[in-house]
């Protein structure tokens, strides 16, 4: 296949996967911030179980792809040899605080935008801008020189995926470890999730978990397997259609930033529509389709200065936080986790902590 048509396939697949994600997330009320809020404020674990099950489904699919040799996960961002612990913690905490102030994570804001929420449009623009500033701009220097300085970094020779961490350079041992870890973790999650009778009966939560998990696996397959081909210019095997030139799957902050960049600089021939950009638009459009079909589309705007300022602060923290933590509640929380990356685990725990602490403060301020 020619490089341009291969990229079209990758981008088209990203758009389709994103659209299904948006449609299902809107229909089922899948929401990572909502999941944390339900646990912290209501002691209800339904949506948290859905999120956990999505991780387990993704984990099983991804490690099957890895075991079969279809996708080389050691070439992904999540397997990086540099374990930026300080960056994952600070970024994760900021993202957690941010999503709680901004009415939801990046994915939820895309879903809300599809439902007619103009607050989310403002959040997404500001979040995307803050992400660019953190990737390549003024905050990028701070991120690299302070948060990702040698003090905040541990170097793992075999990368930070748990199987390689435990098994060292022994490739066969790492493969056995991969099977054992995936099996143990996925089984523990499945037992925890399905021991709850209410979850077993909740069609929405089950649907959300299975579809989101499957979409993440699909994304990896598209970019990491279909997208790997010989570059006609360099004659080297190259990953086509992604911004990172590596395998990618669902993640929503950096792709929102790349979407803004694409709009601003699209006459620059090096800027192309990528898998990530396509997923961003796919999610919003899929959600719009559901909103129109279910007659739940409503225009919404900020209700007060306080409402708007919370959303703006939240958006900045999400943009900064996700780039610093190398992902959001989906990018790290499902996609990264599915690769069994230590950094993803640390980032996810930090995001949940940041969000839960903010909720506790909000609750205390109400009294």
């Amino acid at each position: 296949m020619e490089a341009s048509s291969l990229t079209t396939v990758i981008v088209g697949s990203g758009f389709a996967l994103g659209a299904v994600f948006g449609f299902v997330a809107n229909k089922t009320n899948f929401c990572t911030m909502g999941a944390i809020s339900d646990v912290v404020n209501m002691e209800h674990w339904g949506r948290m179980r859905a999120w956990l099950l999505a991780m387990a489904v993704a984990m099983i699919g991804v490690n099957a792809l890895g075991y079969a040799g279809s996708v080389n996960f050691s070439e992904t961002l999540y397997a990086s040899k540099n374990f930026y612990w300080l960056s994952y913690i600070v970024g994760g905490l900021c993202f957690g605080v941010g999503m709680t102030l901004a009415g939801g994570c990046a994915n939820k804001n895309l879903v809300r935008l599809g439902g007619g929420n103009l607050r989310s449009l403002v959040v997404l623009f500001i979040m995307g801008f803050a992400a660019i500033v953190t990737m390549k701009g003024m905050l990028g220097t701070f991120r690299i020189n302070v948060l990702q300085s040698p003090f905040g970094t541990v170097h793992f020779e075999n990368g930070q995926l748990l199987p390689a961490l435990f098994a060292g350079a022994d490739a066969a041992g790492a493969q056995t470890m991969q099977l054992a870890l995936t099996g143990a973790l996925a089984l523990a999650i499945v037992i925890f999730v399905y021991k709850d009778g209410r979850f077993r009966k909740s069609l929405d939560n089950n649907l959300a978990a299975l579809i989101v998990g499957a979409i993440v696996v699909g994304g990896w397959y598209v970019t990491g397997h279909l997208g790997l081909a010989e570059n006609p210019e360099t004659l080297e095997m190259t990953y086509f259609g992604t911004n990172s030139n590596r395998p990618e799957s669902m993640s929503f902050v950096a792709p929102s930033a790349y979407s803004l960049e694409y709009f601003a600089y699209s006459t620059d021939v090096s800027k192309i529509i990528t898998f990530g950009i396509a997923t961003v638009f796919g999610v919003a459009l899929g959600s719009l389709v559901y909103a129109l079909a279910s007659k739940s589309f409503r225009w919404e705007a900020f209700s007060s200065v306080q409402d708007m300022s919370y959303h703006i602060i939240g958006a900045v923290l999400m943009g900064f936080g996700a780039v610093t933590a190398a992902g959001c509640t989906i990018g790290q929380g499902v996609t990264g986790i599915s690769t069994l990356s230590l950094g993803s685990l640390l980032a996810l725990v930090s995001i949940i902590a940041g969000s839960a602490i903010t909720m506790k403060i909000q609750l205390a301020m109400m009294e």
Partner: protein
Amino acid sequence: MNFDKELNARGLSCPLPIVKTKKSLADMTTGQVLKVISTDCGSLKDMAAFSEQTGNPLLSTVEENGEYVFYVKKK
């Protein structure tokens, strides 16, 4: 519809309307009705899920002029 207490959740974003609803219901007695007014359209789904999860019946949902009015009975 008659109600015993009113909660003004206008201008609050998810998840605060639900959190405030839970707190308000905690101070009420069985059978009393709480009226909640929200401007966040996410509350439509959230309030239905809240009622289902907690067993406090959602008696009615009315949407008018961009506001959502819910009547929740304390179980």
